[in-house]
């Protein structure tokens, strides 16, 4: 429907001065990416590859060395571009002397909410992240998972159209991280655009429809998840509760057909993980052989 991208990053470069050398650290190197409204985009990459830096530039917390970032068509260096963004930083932390409820009220006020609307929103958010029982407790005493959830609530308080999550499930137990994942799916159903980064490839695969892989500040692969992980000439059949006889008969059917070959049978894999590791290998190979042969095996 809408054709203004929710996120548009054009040739973003971000350099940090390095204290001891003349050369600068290039944390983000010519990254371009576009996220359309309603998409769930997952940025994956190893530690220090520039994921958080990209997100900070998109939020106007950092000024690009070169290139530009736009959020719904507004330059991210302008304050009003943030009207539409909710942000959950990595390892969020809040004023520890405030209670969970006060924290949310504080952020709601920052977004310009007042009076009844504010109260309603705060209640709604506390319920959504199931922190009603802890609403009067000081945030200083919250567990890591609770901090992450209050962080999510804070990011969503003004019902933004775009939500940026920096490792939303870091340090959260499996149950908690499943809840967070369900929440992301819920948001997606409501049409909210999600931009997240994570190391947990399984989870990225489950919720994201678009994926970008970033290494040393460069996007090495990007596109719709389906395209990235599909192996064109193969078909996967998923069967629940199949007994040995059923499996034997399926194998027999495949053996009977003229050009189909049976390859393997087993539990489904996290194919994104395989893709990620492949890319990691390739990226390492190119950086290692680059100065010897100038070769490119990718």
């Amino acid at each position, binding site marked *: 429907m809408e054709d203004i991208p929710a996120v548009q990053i054009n040739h973003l470069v971000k350099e940090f001065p390095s204290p001891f050398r003349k050369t600068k650290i290039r944390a983000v190197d010519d990254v371009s990416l576009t996220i359309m409204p309603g998409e769930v985009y997952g940025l994956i990459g190893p530690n220090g590859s520039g994921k958080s830096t990209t997100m900070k530039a998109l939020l106007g*917390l950092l000024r690009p060395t070169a290139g530009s970032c736009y959020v719904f068509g507004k330059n991210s260096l302008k304050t009003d571009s943030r009207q539409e963004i909710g942000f959950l930083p990595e390892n969020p932390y809040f004023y520890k002397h405030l209670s969970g409820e006060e924290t949310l009220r504080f952020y709601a006020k920052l977004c310009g909410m007042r009076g009844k609307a504010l109260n309603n929103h705060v209640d709604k958010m506390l319920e959504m992240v199931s922190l009603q029982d802890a609403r009067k407790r000081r945030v200083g005493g919250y567990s890591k998972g609770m901090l992450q959830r209050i962080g999510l609530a804070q990011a969503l308080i003004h019902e933004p159209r775009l939500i940026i999550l920096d490792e939303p499930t870091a340090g959260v137990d499996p149950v908690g991280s499943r809840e967070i994942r369900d929440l992301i799916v819920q948001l997606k159903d409501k049409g909210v655009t999600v931009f997240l980064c994570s190391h947990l490839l399984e989870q990225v695969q489950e919720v994201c429809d678009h994926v970008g892989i970033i290494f040393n500040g460069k996007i090495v692969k990007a596109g719709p998840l389906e395209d990235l992980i599909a192996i064109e000439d193969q078909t996967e059949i998923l069967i629940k509760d199949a007994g040995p006889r059923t499996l034997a008969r399926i194998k027999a059917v495949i053996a009977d057909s003229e050009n189909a070959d049976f390859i393997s049978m087993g539990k489904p894999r996290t194919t994104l993980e395989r893709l990620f590791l492949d890319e990691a290998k390739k990226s390492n190979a190119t950086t290692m052989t680059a100065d010897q042969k100038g070769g490119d095996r990718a």
Partner: protein
Amino acid sequence: MKVFYFLGVFAVLMLAASFFEMPWSRTTEDSAEQELIVLKSTAMGAMAMFSILFAIAATALLIPKDLEDRTLYTILSKPVPRLDYLIGKLAGVLILVTVSLLLMNGLLSIILHFKTEELLLVEMAKAEAHGWSAEHLELRLSAVAQQGVTWTLQAGIGAILFKAMVMASLALLISTFSSSTLFTIVIAVVIYFMGHFTEDARNYWLHSQSGGVSKEVKLMTQGIALIFPDFQLYNIIDSTIEGKKVPQGIFTRLAILTLFYSGIYSVLAWFTFRKKEF
């Protein structure tokens, strides 16, 4: 929270000071006034020290603390202009300083009031004993009352608040480019002390350059005076302790000067903070 501990200490100090009998007390003619002045100068010295140190330290801690906690990320990623963030933080500190000054002022006024009443009675008793004339008694009573709770005293406390306000905005400015809290505090304190000599330094400089002072030099000294606040005018705090009247005009000028300094420092703070990266 630590603010309230200080207020507690202040209260104890005040009560102690009011019951403490000065060794020389009631020997000379004006001992009653002296006693009140000692009480006031103890209290107002403590008030000034507290509010100025608090203004510097609390403001210096604001941004580093938010950055360390990463609360700054969540705050600045909301549609909040950076200027609003700075002003909000500064206002928070100033409100805290104002409230604690009001509380301390209240306590001081109550104690001072009762002390003055007591001393007035003593004077009247003396008058009866020594058979003072009506005029003499009248004179003594008004001299004592002048050292009691007066508007002048309130003006002095207002000046303390003004001074704290200037120092808070200065500390805010320094903290926007300083990389450590300690540096901010030390520089702010140094500038604070220098601020008491700005006028002297400028005069000395201008006089030592006998003959023609060039326009450039004049501009430069004026520029320095802008960066380093000139606290000369704030000396009315001391005169109010001694019960001297402060003309309305001086107080108004002081208010304007304070707004001017705070405004300049806040604008400069915004200029550096606007482009800052996190």
